[in-house]
């Protein structure tokens, strides 16, 4: 249905001043000069991020490269249930399960023998993280990747497993608990500051 609640924006006829053009040039130049001077002298208006010295602080939901979390004894938390493989729209996850040799301390029956993710297939939608019932797969904030070949992009257990303690991980998208550590900083910080490590 056609609505009557409209605001009409018609082209206004040009006034003489505008037709003369010189005044308009001056006005336009004033805008660009304002930006130029602000950039030149007041560096806080500069918007260019000095990458790689300054890294833009993305939120803790950034969907980057995956991490397979481990239990305290260093074994993967993954129980090879194939849920992430099933949930993945790009079918980039490949799991082969193996039975855990029975032992009284082991409470899970299976573990992944092979767990590969084709980082060059993955669309970083985070559905694998949503699907995981054991919080075994999460995403990190590592998003600056470049490979020289397609084989390099297929990563296995050795490259995916968590390195170092959980608190030190550069965590990205994961099942969400509590308040995040990062803030949305606007305008986007562009200069190196204390607290942001060089070349994180």
């Amino acid at each position, binding site marked *: 249905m056609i609505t009557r609640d409209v605001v009409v924006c018609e082209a206004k006829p040009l006034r003489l001043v505008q037709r003369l053009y010189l005044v308009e040039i001056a006005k336009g130049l004033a805008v660009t000069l304002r930006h130029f001077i602000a950039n030149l002298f007041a560096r806080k208006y500069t*918007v*260019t*991020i000095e*990458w*790689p010295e300054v*890294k*833009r602080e*993305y939120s803790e939901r950034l969907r980057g490269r995956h991490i397979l979390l481990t239990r305290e004894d260093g074994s993967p938390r993954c129980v090879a249930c194939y849920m992430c493989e099933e949930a993945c*729209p*790009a*079918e*980039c996850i490949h799991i082969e399960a193996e039975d855990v040799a029975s032992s009284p301390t082991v409470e899970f029956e299976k573990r992944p023998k092979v767990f590969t993710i*084709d*980082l*060059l*297939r*993955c*669309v*970083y*939608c985070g559905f694998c993280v949503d699907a995981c019932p054991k919080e075994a797969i999460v995403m990190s904030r590592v*998003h*600056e*990747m*470049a*490979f*020289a*070949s*397609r084989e*390099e*992009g297929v990563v296995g257990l050795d490259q995916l497993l968590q390195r170092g303690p959980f608190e030190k991980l550069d965590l990205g998208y994961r099942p969400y608990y509590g308040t995040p550590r990062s803030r949305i900083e606007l305008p*986007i910080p562009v200069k190196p500051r204390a607290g942001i490590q060089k070349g994180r």
Partner: protein
Amino acid sequence: MGNPEVRPSLPVVGGTGTAGAVAKQPDGSRVFLTTKLEKLLDAARKNSLWPLPFGTACCAIEFMSFMMSHYDISRFGAEVVRFSPRQSDLLIVAGTVTDKMAPVMVRIYEQMAEPKYVISMGVCACTGGFYRAYHVVQGIDEFIPVDVYVPGCPPTPEALLQGVVKLQEMISNGETRYQRALAAKRASQAQAGG
């Protein structure tokens, strides 16, 4: 169509043998002067890449971010975007390439003068991504050789910057497809020439 085989199509520096009178290098392949000259040229090439954005889809929007003031690729010497393949030496394939588009991409690639480099931006260009479908090329390396693959859907501008930096490193280390093909050609020439 598209021949993934490497073939340097233009005469290469030092390949004409004008400096052939000078003593050979220990490895028997190159003359000293031209090797140094080539290092110099590589440094020049590395720091003044002229990209041709072959932007087809979502990645082209991130390519815009990569060009715009927040990321500003001119800090890496690659801001001169040219849409003519004759004027550019870095083909950035940004976005999904379909079977309908593939001949166009191959033609553009072939029109570029050597040395030329290819960055495949985004998973669609790298492998087809989640479009395992009837009309989508499953990786542009089916048709043209690729130097750097940048994952992400679409990659963040930082990731693409990383890709450009990696390509620069590869140029200075002589690891690009062009340089490897050149080295292979020279090695075979040296072998043939004794």
